[in-house]
Structure formats: C-alpha cells, structure tokens
C-alpha cells in the first residue's frame, strides 16, 4: 500500500498512534555571523526579485510561504511568477496551506516551474493533483506535522518568504497592525528558525523596533517593502457569520446538549470549536451553558473570532490560545488583551516535542469529509476521490481529551458516514463522538461517555445504525475508481505516511 519512497525520499509507513520512535537529533540551520549582515541592522533590499536572487535561487529549491492571509494572499503567486521569469525549474512549494487564490499556480505546475506542492492542495489545485497532472507527488501535512518535518530535517527549506503585516528593516515582524493585519504569524515560526534564507515582505514598514517581534529579525536575511501584500477583506472578515441553516443549527444544538449532559462542560474546562458556521454556534451554546451554570472555562483554543472575544471579555473564558485569527475583533483582542495569546504550531501541535497543549483540551470540535464505521476520519479527499482540502490542525487536535465531530449525515446525497474512508487521515481510536442531525454515535472505546449518557433523552445510536440510515436515504454509493499512480501522500503527525491518494479516473 505505502511505497518505500516518495519523491526520491524514503518514507516510513504509519505504525499506529504513538508507536513510531524517532531517533537522532533535530535539524540544524547553518551558523550565521553578524559580520555578513549590515551593522546598522538595515536588511532592506529593493525588490522581491532581488531578495530571491541574493538568496541564491536555483532549480529544485524548496520555497515556503504561509497562509496567514488565507484567500487574500498576494505573495505566493508573485514569488513563483518571479521564479518563472528567472527561468528556474522544478521548484517545491511548501506552503502552510493553500487557498483558491493560489489557482494561478496551476499554470506554473504545468510549465515545469513548480514540481510539486508539499502542504495542502485545496479546490482547483486539488483537482489538478488528483487528475495526475502534477509532476511530483504532493505531500499533505498537518500544521504540527509541518513543524515536525522542518524540525526533524525531513524538509530543508531553502528560502522562506514571510509576508508580514508589520515589520522593521531588521526583520522583526508581527501581524497585529497594518492594512493586512491578520493576528498571529505562528505558522511561519519554524520557517524563520530553520530555513536557509529568510525573506520578510511587508507593506507596513516601521522603524526599528517592531514590537512585539513575533518573528525575530535575528533569523531574517532580507526585508522587502511591497505596496500591497494582501487583500484585507479576504484576510479577516469584518463580521464572522454564524450559520443560519436550520439543519446545522440543529446539529450545533445537539452537540452542545451532548457536551452538557455528558458532563464535559464544568468549571475550569477547556474547549476548541473552530470558526466554521456550525462551530461558532456551538461556542455560543457553550456560552449560554456557562452563564446558566455560573462557571467559566480556563482557556479556549482558537481560531479566534468575535464571539470568543466576547466570552473572553465577559470573563466566561480566562484565556484564548490563538492559532489563527478570523475576524477584526479577533485581531483587536490579540493586540490589546494579554490574556489572548499568540501560539505557534510548536507550542500547540508539534508531536516531536516534550508534549504540546493540543492534548490538554477537554472538548475539541472538528469537521471531516467522511467518517467510517470504525470512526476513522478523512479530511483531505471527498467521497468522489478528489483532493479538496488540507489537513490543517485537524490531526493534531485529535489528541484532545474528547474529540467531537458534528457532521450532517449526508451532503447533497453524498453520505458522510461510510464503510471505509476514501483516504485515512485520522485513526478512529482518536475520534470519540459523531453528532449528526439524525443521531449521535459514541466510539465504543469511550465506555465512560456511553455510561454518562445512559438514560438521557439524547438520540444515541451506533455508528452502524447511522450508516444504515444514510444509505437508506441516499442509496449505497459506488466507490470512485483510481489508477495505480500515487498523486499525494498523507503524513501522520510523526512524519510517517498514513495513507496515499491515487489518480482519479474521471467520470
């Protein structure tokens, strides 16, 4: 199933949760010397092109970017356009995530400028990869897995380009102010620490010192000033929208009710709900429950947004540990409130470390494209076999104490609960509860939860019952058909390969 090597690198197949033992030492960046850098601390160069040339850009290099600007990113495409004009070939793009705005990269994948993507392949890039059109094999990693891969030397970044909403000429940078303010820059931490060359690009250059220096200039080689690095309204939304869909509201309500009645919500608890429409509603239900019970949460892991900020300011949540910021209220809060802390994939997610806080969260609410009868989850492909999403922090969050997936039983006829997931991204032993509009399935491994909800009026069903129910409504779907060719590999949090994605045979 899992081949011995991918893209010419040896790979280790998934061994089971917590089974793979790494050995050796972490990767080490080259030793730098101050004598190579301007003594006045001014690392400004005149253009991105200049910075790339000075960084020694050449064929086959690994270039990293980050998704702090989400669908409003203007930098990644720009870099590869420059690289194409410079005539370089077979580059590896190593983003922390990709978005629909990165669609133009398809042309650069076609013309040989880019060999492959190691990151996420969303939307159009996913289709392109699924149809076997990418030269190399795509590698999908979680946010924590990305840090792990860099730290362990699995991926040696040649040039990291960090788009920063505010920076000084020395390279200190943060995401708190400026037209492209996005909150945290945590996803770029590993790149700044480990990449061979680091370029900071900003459209809000301030004199030294840029504080707080979330990205430290001591790691940075060059600073570039650009007129515009992101499209603000696509970076953070002005207002975060809660779902109005009655079916999703129903699922959200059922999820909150489950958490309440199974005793998961208690004084000092912690939770992570995410920023999807359904998740937002769940967090407001949590808020109502906390108010009613007169309790508060010790911390919330975020995806911060207006509603979470309100809870922080009301005193219902003591701390927000923020991984990314979704709206303007979130950005304001992280700037002003000491109890709203920036985190990075190192503190939150990295599996090859001495623990991380993802495992300390009491209630973790996540999504999935599919879950199978063994509670295995898929987040990267759809049931039709096409790659469509990245892993994000999903795999890392599975280590939370109780992992709950609120999901519709089917989406436009496509069953969400299936016999076997199309692509395995998360082992069932880590997924505890599936909440659907037609019933709640608890993983049989969680005998404690099953015991707690006995005698409640919650619609508890077995996962098999839910699967039968959805097949009765939708009909039993056929499986998509694949060729043998592997188009992408899914890494587990420890760097092993948990599954591969094969080329689709289009219908």
């Amino acid at each position, binding site marked *: 199933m899992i081949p011995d090597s991918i893209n010419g690198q040896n790979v280790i197949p998934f061994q089971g949760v917590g089974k793979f033992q790494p050995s050796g030492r972490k990767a080490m960046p080259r030793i730098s010397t101050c004598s190579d850098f301007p003594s006045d601390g001014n690392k400004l160069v005149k253009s991105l092109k200049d910075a790339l040339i000075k960084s020694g850009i050449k064929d086959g290099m690994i270039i990293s970017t980050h998704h702090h600007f989400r669908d409003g990113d203007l930098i990644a495409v720009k870099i590869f356009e420059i690289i194409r004009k410079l005539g370089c070939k077979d580059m590896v793009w190593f983003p922390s995530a990709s978005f629909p705005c990165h669609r133009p990269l398809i042309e650069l994948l076609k013309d040989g400028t880019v060999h492959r993507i190691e990151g996420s392949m969303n939307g159009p890039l996913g289709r392109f990869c699924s149809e076997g059109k990418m030269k190399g094999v795509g590698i999908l990693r979680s946010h924590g897995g990305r840090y792990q891969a860099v730290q362990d030397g699995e991926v040696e970044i040649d040039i990291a380009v960090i788009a920063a909403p505010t920076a000084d000429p020395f390279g200190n940078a943060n995401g708190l102010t400026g037209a492209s303010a996005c909150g945290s820059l945590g996803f770029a931490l590993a790149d700044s620490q480990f990449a061979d060359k680091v370029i900071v690009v900003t459209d809000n250059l301030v004199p030294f010192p840029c504080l707080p220096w979330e990205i430290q200039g001591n790691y940075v080689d060059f600073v570039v000033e650009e007129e515009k690095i992101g499209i603000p309204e696509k970076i953070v939304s002005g207002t975060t929208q809660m779902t109005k869909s009655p*079916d999703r509201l129903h699922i959200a309500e059922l999820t909150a009710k489950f958490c309440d009645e199974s005793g998961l919500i208690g004084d000092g608890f912690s939770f992570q709900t995410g920023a999807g429409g359904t998740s937002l509603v769940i967090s407001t239900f949590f808020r109502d429950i906390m108010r009613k019970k007169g309790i508060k949460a010790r911390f919330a892991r975020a995806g911060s947004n207006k509603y979470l900020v309100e809870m922080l300011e009301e005193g219902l949540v003591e701390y927000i540990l923020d991984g990314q910021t979704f709206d303007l209220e979130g950005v304001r809060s992280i700037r002003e409130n000491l109890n709203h802390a920036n985190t990075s994939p190192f503190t939150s997610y990295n599996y090859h470390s001495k623990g991380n806080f993802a495992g300390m969260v009491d209630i973790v609410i996540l999504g999935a494209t599919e879950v199978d009868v063994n509670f295995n989850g898929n987040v990267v492909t759809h049931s039709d076999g096409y790659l469509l999403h990245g892993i994000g922090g999903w795999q890392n969050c599975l280590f939370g104490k109780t992992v709950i997936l609120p999901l519709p039983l089917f989406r436009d006829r496509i069953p969400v609960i299936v016999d076997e997931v199309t692509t395995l991204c998360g082992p069932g032993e880590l997924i505890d509860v599936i909440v659907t509009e037609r019933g709640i399935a608890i993983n049989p491994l969680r005998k404690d939860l099953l015991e707690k909800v006995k005698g409640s009026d919650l619609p508890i069903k077995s996962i098999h019952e839910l699967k039968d129910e959805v097949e009765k409504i939708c009909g039993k779907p056929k499986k998509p058909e694949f060729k043998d060719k592997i188009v992408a590999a899914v890494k587990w949090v420890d760097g092993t390969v948990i599954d591969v994605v094969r080329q689709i045979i289009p219908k």
Partner: protein
Amino acid sequence: MTGTAGNKGDYIRSDCYVSVELAQESGIEINLRSKVASLYGDSIRNISLDILNFFEIQHAKVTIEDKGALDFVIAARLESAIKEVVSSEKEYLLPLTSENTYHTDKDKPRRSRLYIPGNSPKLMINAGIHSADGVILDLEDSVAPDKKNEARYLVRNALRSVNFYDAERMVRINQIPEGMNDLKYIVPHNVNLILLPKCETAAQIKQVDEEISQIAKKSEHQIHLMPIIESALGVINAYSIATASENIAALAIGLEDYTADIGAKRSEGGKESFYARSTIVNAASAAGIQAIDSVYSDVSNMDGLRENVANSKALGFVGMGCIHPRQVRIINTGFNPGQAEIEKAKAIVLAYEEAQRKGSGVTAIGSKMIDLPIVKRALTTLNTALSSGLLKENWRESENE
C-alpha cells in the same frame, strides 16, 4: 415535443432539472450531468431507464442536470416531464416505506406545523428532524403557478419516501376548486391531514370530503381535515365549516389574507383580527375541535414570536403554523401546558379514574363536580405534556407514592 421539470441554477441543491424530448428512432439517450456522478451516476441512469420503460417510451433524448437529488426527486421530475409529452394515467410509484405508514389521532397535539414549499426537495429531506408536531408539504402559496403540476408529483413521492420521524404528515392543497385536482396525488399515499386554504363555506368541505372518500375507498383510516379561514365570509361561516364533516380535526386562521380582505393592516398586536381569531376559537370549541392560529412571519424576531404565542394561547388557540424550523421550539414550548395546568389535569384525571373504578357516574374533586368535557380537556393537556417530555409515562405511579 420537449417536457421539462425541476429546478436548476447555482444555488439549487438536492434537486435536478430534467428534460425529455421524444424521438422517432435511435432509442434512449440519457445525458447526465451530476456532481455525484462517480457515486450515483449508474443508479440515476438505472432509475431513469426504469421510468422510461414504465411509460413505454422507446425513443427519447433525456437530459438530467443533477445537483444531488435523491431517487424520489429524480422520479418525480422525470415522471412530470414525461407527462408533459406523453398522455398516461399510470403512476410510477416508489415503495411506501414502512416508516411512513403511521396514522394520527384526531385530537393529537398540533402545537406546531412546519410549512415546507411543495417544490423544494432540499427542505423536505430534513423537515422531520426539527420536532414539529406536523410537517406540511405545501402545494398552495409557496409553489409558483407554472410549477403546480410538477410539485404534485414531488409531494406525492415525498409522502411515500421521506421519513418525517412521526411528525403528522400534512399537505396543504390549493384553493377549491383547483385543490380538487391535488387530492388524487396525496390521498392514496398516507397523508394524515389535509389543509384546505381560503375556506368559506361548508359546501366546499363536503365537496372535498366526498372526493376523498371516492379516492380512498379502501383505506379504513381517517384523513383529518384542517380548513383555513382567510376571509370575512369564512369567519362568518366558521361554525358551519367546523361542523361540516366528522373528519375536521382543527380550524385554522390565516391572517395575511384575512386582514387584506377586511382592508386592515396586520399589526404586531393583532387587534384588527381579534374578532376573527376569537370567532375561530369559539367556533372550534363549539364544534369540539382544535383552534389553530396563523403563522408569525418575522422569522428573525424570536421575542416577537414568543409574545405572539403567549397571546395566541391566552385567546384559546392550541397551536400555530411555523414558516421556519427555528420557530418550532418556541411555539412548542409556548403552547405546552404550564406546571399548574398539568397538576390540575392530573388531579382531574385521577379523580375521574377513581370514580370509574368505584362505578360512580359522577366525578368530583372535593365538592366540585367535574363534567366529561373537562376530563377530556385534561386528558388532552396530559397528552401534550407527555409528548413534549413534561410528564413521564408512569406519572400515575409517582403520584401514588
């Protein structure tokens, strides 16, 4: 000749658009565009071929633009499109699933009834999960005039295939006489209750009643009727309408049309309709049936809805229509009996049962005599309390402890 049915467009989900063009030769050509083609493409082709075969069509060009429609939708769309170009009395019926064979009692609680547009399959599929006492598949105002016919097939198929999870299965037909044409599409498919809009005379009820018994010859269970009074004349005739048939379970009022009819503007407080609402409650009570209030149309105003429900209950109504699932909970809760009401009802029922045991014809609590209608009302209160979880099935035991 081309027949078409269904909906298309970027925002359409769980539906399909079908066109059928008859040909002289070259057999059946099915042109399917579906976002679920790799999972259900074969299944969609198979059911389409089966339907074409059923209607004995040998040569045709069929185009299906599918957005994840379930079988009952595909079948309804295709049959409707076929019948635009082929004259046939035959009906392509999917099995009536075993979950859909339940019947309902005439005096069951009808606190909330959720309106679902009769030509919107997406909204039908999950209609039953919101705990409304009834789900209404609407053939009247929510269906555009040029879509009336295809909606009939869709509603018929939904009645057979969609599980509404014990909600009372209701259909609102079109105004009489147009509504008479709707009956054959719903009566044989275990509809529990039919709403008759813009009812003005007892004669209309009798006409519907007769047609139903013609169609439902073999069916031995009762199909309940709920006339909706929506005009000044209807209000005047409320009692004769309410008593026009044994099958009438409830009398409802529709205030949008009523206020237009009397030339008033519908207000938040509703004083312009006080007379009409009161008359409906009075007529329904006199006829021994339920009085059901009009919908509250501001979907985002939950406080307004809550107040409206409280007023409605105070007037004597026992239920209300919902135009959005979000309204269901507030309406159900609002029409639920209060704790004091439940206690009183328990006392009455216990006293009655005690009297029955003793063979006494007279029920009394202390020195107060209890009449049979009051016992009946108390039982209804307890029924509602039971079905909404306010009372345990075994309440008598805990009462005796």
